[in-house]
């Protein structure tokens, strides 16, 4: 492996694991200290490896140094507590003697616990996503800001406030007990779903980074599946949904980086293996009577993995969107329902449905209406596409809309 790429790669893979283990050991209030220790560890690696060469097992080296730094920190903290506070209430002796456990099992356990701590209802879901990207997935502030189309300083502020809130709320780093787990798991799933969508739908041009977001969301969902108390049908349904969506990851962007709409995709570029994995997860999702929004969305995504218009594909997709919305409102689902309505009942009836949504100012609302008005009223189509163009954030989105306007004659 290229040595210059070694440390960035290790950072991406190991930063989150190490911070998570240290933080679960120290408590949520010391997340910054855990991050500092791990950052220092990578700094030492860069210095030492440059001089003495890369050790035979770089990961073990990192873990050993992080462990030592953490124990030193705990020792100092113990001394600090004893000298300054006098009344040592934190079980200091125990703290000092306990090891920092970086075994694979404890890494997984800590990540599961941390997922619940981060996805705490006391902080906004945007803050949860940013924290998860930073602490659980080890993305840099730069990368997070780029993918979420905002500034580094915004992300830093968001993370700072979120950590402060978690500290004030004295959030436990633990998997909630059986009484609480249902509700808390829903918050975690919403965060993972959003994390996936940030990768899948982000207007960021960095395709590799966006794919990494999706893969991380799937990895974390898979951790929930591997744990008995969190392996519920709706978790399998979410995983199936992610597999079905991710199967089109390559097909929806062409070699020039332009977005390719579903109808125009080359189905040979759909990932059959991911579709099959999605099917397997979906079968396990429908064991119970439970029907969550993830079940309905996974079923919709399943229909989308069928290129041929067979077995009343769009009738089924429309029915599922109806059920999805009756269960819980979502503007994205409402817009997609209107598109499915068009595929079943034609443009004129779909225009009535779409306009009733009153989502003026929403990029997808205007591009949908533009699409529906084609050949019904091209002047209206042009107006809506133009409005969408003004709202579009990325060159890829603008290119699609410009092509649509050109096609209106």
């Amino acid at each position, binding site marked *: 492996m290229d040595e210059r790429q070694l440390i960035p790669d290790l950072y991406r893979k190991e930063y989150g694991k190490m911070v998570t283990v240290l933080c679960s050991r120290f408590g949520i209030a010391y997340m910054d200290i855990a991050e500092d220790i791990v950052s220092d560890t990578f700094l030492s690696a860069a210095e030492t490896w440059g001089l003495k060469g890369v050790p035979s097992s770089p990961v073990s080296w990192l873990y050993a140094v992080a462990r030592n730094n953490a124990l030193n920190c705990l020792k100092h903290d113990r001394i600090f507590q004893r000298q300054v506070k006098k009344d040592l209430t934190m079980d200091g002796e125990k703290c000092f003697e306990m090891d920092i456990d970086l075994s694979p099992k404890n890494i997984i356990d800590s990540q599961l616990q941390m997922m619940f701590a981060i996805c705490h209802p006391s902080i906004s879901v945007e803050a949860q996503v940013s924290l998860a990207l930073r602490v659980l997935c080890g993305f840099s502030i730069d990368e997070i800001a780029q993918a979420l189309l905002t500034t580094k300083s915004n992300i830093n502020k968001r993370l700072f406030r979120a950590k402060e809130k978690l500290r004030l709320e004295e959030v436990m780093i633990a998997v909630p007990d059986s009484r609480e787990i249902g509700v808390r798991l829903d918050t975690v799933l919403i965060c993972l779903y959003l994390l996936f969508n940030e990768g899948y739908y982000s207007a960021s041009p960095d395709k590799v980074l966006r794919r990494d977001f999706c893969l991380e969301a799937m990895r974390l969902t898979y951790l929930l599946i591997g744990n008995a108390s969190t392996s519920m049908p709706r978790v399998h349904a979410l995983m199936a949904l992610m597999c079905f969506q991710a199967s089109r990851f390559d097909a929806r962007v062409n070699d020039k980086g332009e977005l390719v709409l579903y109808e125009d995709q080359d189905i040979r570029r759909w990932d059959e293996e991911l579709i099959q994995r999605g099917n397997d997860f979906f079968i396990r999702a429908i064991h119970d009577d439970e029907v969550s929004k993830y079940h309905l969305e996974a079923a919709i995504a399943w229909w989308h993995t069928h290129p041929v218009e067979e077995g009343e594909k769009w*009738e089924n997709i*429309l*029915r599922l*969107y*109806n*059920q999805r*919305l*009756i269960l819980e*409102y979502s503007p994205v*689902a*409402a817009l997609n*329902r*209107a598109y499915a*309505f068009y595929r079943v009942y034609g443009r004129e009836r779909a225009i009535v*449905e779409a306009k*009733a*949504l*009153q989502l003026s100012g929403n990029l997808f609302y205007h591009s949908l209406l533009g699409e529906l008005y084609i050949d019904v009223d091209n002047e209206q189509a042009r107006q809506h596409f133009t409005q969408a163009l003004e709202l579009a954030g990325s060159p890829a989105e603008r290119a699609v809309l410009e092509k649509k306007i050109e096609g209106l004659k």
Partner: protein
Amino acid sequence: MKEFALIFRIDGNAVASAGEVTPAQMQERMTYWTNWMGGIAARDRLSSSGHRLGIRESKTIASGNVVTDGPYTEVKEFINGYVIIKAQSVDEAVEMAKGCPILFAEGGKVEVRPLVAPDDNN
């Protein structure tokens, strides 16, 4: 935004004299209903998807604990379900009720009734 119950009424006599419903008709009815409710939900105006109310095993209890079968001994029409929606005004609620598939049934009616909030005095 106010909440309104849309209460579906159908004609008891028409139901009694209606023939068998074919599976295709049944599916068509279901499609009408999910499209109508999905349309309301797509506007974020569905408060509760309510319930359908059955006829079999239903009884009516009158004062003096007089129990009679079904809801239909003394009434020609009966309630067969309800949903709760959000609307700016009763007029808007009426507009939303106009697409309800119960209106395709013989004698089908939708009753629009405001939910009484705790601070409503009238």
